């Protein structure tokens, strides 16, 4: 069988017995890649799917690529998906996912692997050394205790990796030489690339919740606590170097679609539109959330990306950090910084600290806000009800950041109480009221709100609630950012509300095609069947296109695009839509909707796993403050603009701040959602009919045996 896009085999790592086995990719082909394959592998190889803590020895962690990894598909070639049971959520740590970029997934493919399945637990720390087909287990005694950057440097030293890329070939001389190899094959065992290394830092070694996996300087799988999962398996790092390539089914079509993306959908370099409304087609933009530290920078990207949202600077800090980690400490730094240069420097150095410790900074955003609240209220601190010897009076300094991260990563000071999760700590400290008042803004599943409050941004909130974690899926929320920014500057809107929803609805096939009302977030429509269809579309789209094909969340989908005369974006288009790239690489002939259907199948498999873990609709609810308090106007921004219909049915952009969610109505909305999914609305469990329709009768059998199969509606 010729594998187009696929390497053709998957690596099973038996940590307990230190054995590596190759299995064929073919039986998993129908799951696409990435998340879908990972869920299917978890289903097959996790012997106890009732576990609710990712540190359990039975947990199986899959690190998965996609057929598109290592190709030129725009902003899809360099992402990598991680799945398994997570750590630190509340009330249950679900089977969950995370995702990171860089060059690990591509190197894994070049080495001949579509993914890695990590099972069991080593009896002492090890690191894995993959060089094409050769897989070696090494003791990691000398690496244990090192931060993520030092670990990677040390591994490069151990592998005798030379510096520089032009004149210095790395020789994979440890590879066993087959007798019949010709010259070309010998050549293929040499590369100018460095190995790609994914590893944990101290936070993972101590198995703290929200410990991350880190690759290179700043690529991290943050959510899910997979660093703790690796720590529990005594797995310090996986290094991979490969010299192979990836067979593309139809290079001509792939190249054509890529050129069409450039020429039609992406901003024209000669006459750049700095304020274009598009996702795939914006000018390359660094995602740093503070002022730039210097102009002396060069962009840094995941392999194959047309954006490059990160930077490498000439100043020696902040390299490859972007997005939230560059500002997790921001609100405190500005309390002590003398100017914006110092503000940026402390923020970026604090980003470096979390990268090195391998800690997910996302949790610190609302988490530190809460801890500061407890300190200022006289509850937390030296000699107080919640004892802490951290220098809280110097919050905002680099010294405090380092001490805080150290404590959280090593389970010392308050890190000891936070070791099982933040909501768990609140309950332990007798601070349940903070979940009701919103002093602790962890909106769902014991994880933090994301700046898109569920009381305003419905698809984000509902999507997280019906899933397994903060969804972190930016499919639609540029509506809020673009429109709110235009309002802030008093600029004319590039696209009016009615045109906006109409353009979206054209692409919301199959559930909401030409149904613009799915984007009506008004009070009158917020619990409707239409919004449920939107959430379904997003979940299914993401499970396949983003989490399995690994199109980058920051660039896809592209619904509207002001670079195109009719404003229709690239998503689902016949010239450069997601399915065009997929088909060109793999040789499949799927339609855009068939991709969504694969996503529905993956979503259903995930839900079956959650059900085995103990999920029931009664436990699917937001944190109490979402129902009890209003999203205060001006709390974090003066307005939260979104598309709504008024009483006369006319579309407009409307500010959604100032409301809460109604618990009863959310319950009604859940019933609608379950029914649309073909799940039992009494329990939220999948039914046999639904599963069999997707050729998952074996999943129905397992659920039935566990007494957790949903009843078909009579």
């Amino acid at each position: 069988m010729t594998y187009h896009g696929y390497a053709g085999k998957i690596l099973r790592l038996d940590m307990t017995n230190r054995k590596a086995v190759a299995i064929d990719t073919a039986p998993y082909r129908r799951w696409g890649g990435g998340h879908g394959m990972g869920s299917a592998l978890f289903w097959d190889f996790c012997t106890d799917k009732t576990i609710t803590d990712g540190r359990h020895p039975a947990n199986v962690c899959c690190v998965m690529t996609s057929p598109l990894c290592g190709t030129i598909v725009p902003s899809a070639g360099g992402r990598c998906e991680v799945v398994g049971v997570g750590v630190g959520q509340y009330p249950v740590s679900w089977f969950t996912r995370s995702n990171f970029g860089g060059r690990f997934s591509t190197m894994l493919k070049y080495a001949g692997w579509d993914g890695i399945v990590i099972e069991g637990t080593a009896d002492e720390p090890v690191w894995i050394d993959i060089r094409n087909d050769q897989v070696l287990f090494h003791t990691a005694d000398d690496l244990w205790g090192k931060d993520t950057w030092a670990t990677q440097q040390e591994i490069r030293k151990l592998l005798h990796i030379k510096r520089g890329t032009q004149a210095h070939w790395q020789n994979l001389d440890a590879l066993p030489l087959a007798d019949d190899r010709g010259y070309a094959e010998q050549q293929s065992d040499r590369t100018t690339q460095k190995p790609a290394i994914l590893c944990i830092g101290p936070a993972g070694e101590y198995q703290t919740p929200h410990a991350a996996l880190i690759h290179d300087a700043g690529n991290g799988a943050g959510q899910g606590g997979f660093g703790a999962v690796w720590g529990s398996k005594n797995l310090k790092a996986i290094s991979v170097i490969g010299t192979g390539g990836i067979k593309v089914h139809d290079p001509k079509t792939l190249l054509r679609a890529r050129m069409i993306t450039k020429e039609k959908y992406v901003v024209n370099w000669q006459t750049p539109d700095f304020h274009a409304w598009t996702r795939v087609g914006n000018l390359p933009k660094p995602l740093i959330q503070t002022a730039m530290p210097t102009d002396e920078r060069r962009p840094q990207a995941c392999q194959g990306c047309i954006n490059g949202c990160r930077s490498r600077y000439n100043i020696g800090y902040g390299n490859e950090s972007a997005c939230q980690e560059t500002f997790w400490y921001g609100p405190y730094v500005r309390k002590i910084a003398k100017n914006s240069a110092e503000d940026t420097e402390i923020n970026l150095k604090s980003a470096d600290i979390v990268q090195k410790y391998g800690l997910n900074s996302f949790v610190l955003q609302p988490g530190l806000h809460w801890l500061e609240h407890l300190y200022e209220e006289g509850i937390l601190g030296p000699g107080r009800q919640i004892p802490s010897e951290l220098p809280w009076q110097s919050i905002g300094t680099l010294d405090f950041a380092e001490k805080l991260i150290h404590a959280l990563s090593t389970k010392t000071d308050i890190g000891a109480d936070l070791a099982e999760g933040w909501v768990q700590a609140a309950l332990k400290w007798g601070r349940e009221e903070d979940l009701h008042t919103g002093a602790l803004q962890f909106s769902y599943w014991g994880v933090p709100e994301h700046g898109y409050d569920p009381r305003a941004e419905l698809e984000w909130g509902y999507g997280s609630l019906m899933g397994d974690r903060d969804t972190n899926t930016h499919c639609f929320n540029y509506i809020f950012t673009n429109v709110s920014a235009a309002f802030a500057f008093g600029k004319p809107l590039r696209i009016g509300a009615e045109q906006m929803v109409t353009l979206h609805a054209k692409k919301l096939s199959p559930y909401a095609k030409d149904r613009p009302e799915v984007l009506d977030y008004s009070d009158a429509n917020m619990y409707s069947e239409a919004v449920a269809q939107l959430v379904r579309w997003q979940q299914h789209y993401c499970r396949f296109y983003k989490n399995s094909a690994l199109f980058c969340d920051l660039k896809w989908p592209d619904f509207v695009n002001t670079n195109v005369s009719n404003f229709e974006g690239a998503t689902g288009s016949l010239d450069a839509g997601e399915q065009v790239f997929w088909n060109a690489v793999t040789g499949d002939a799927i339609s855009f909707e068939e991709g969504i259907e694969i996503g529905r199948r993956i979503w259903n498999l995930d839900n079956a796993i959650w059900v085995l873990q103990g999920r029931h609709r009664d436990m699917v609810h937001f944190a109490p403050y979402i129902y009890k308090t209003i999203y205060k106007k001006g709390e974090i921004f003066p307005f939260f603009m979104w598309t709504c219909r008024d009483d006369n049915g006319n579309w407009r952009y409307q500010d959604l701040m100032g409301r809460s969610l109604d618990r009863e109505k959310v319950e009604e909305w859940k019933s609608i959602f379950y029914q649309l999914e073909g799940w039992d609305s009494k329990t939220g469990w999948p039914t046999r009919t639904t599963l069999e329709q997707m050729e998952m009768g074996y999943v129905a059998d397992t659920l039935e045996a566990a007494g957790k199969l949903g009843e078909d509606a009579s």
Partner: protein
Amino acid sequence: MIYGFALPSEALSRKILTPVAFKERFPAGRLKPPVGIIGGDIRSLVELHLFLEPDEATLPGIDLQTLPNWIAQSIGDPELAESIRAVVSARNNYVEGCQKVYELVGHRLNQARMVLKEAT
């Protein structure tokens, strides 16, 4: 910009440069298109000034309507509050309002620093 307010007294200058108690903090966030908003709060005029400093990457998020009350009541500078109220009501858009408030606060901080420097 012409600043219409007089030099603050020594006592007021101290207030202007002193952070308020935690309970008196003023909510503020930061918007980074296209990836989101991050919450926080403000506890001093020095911090407010840094917060409002224009940068190309992000937009400050603050309620300009209620800000003057906070400056009058929590910081204790009714004159600055009045000036801010005036520029906010005359603004063409939110960002312009933020910029004008940034300039006013910067001027007031300079005044306070100068007064205290002269007093020492």
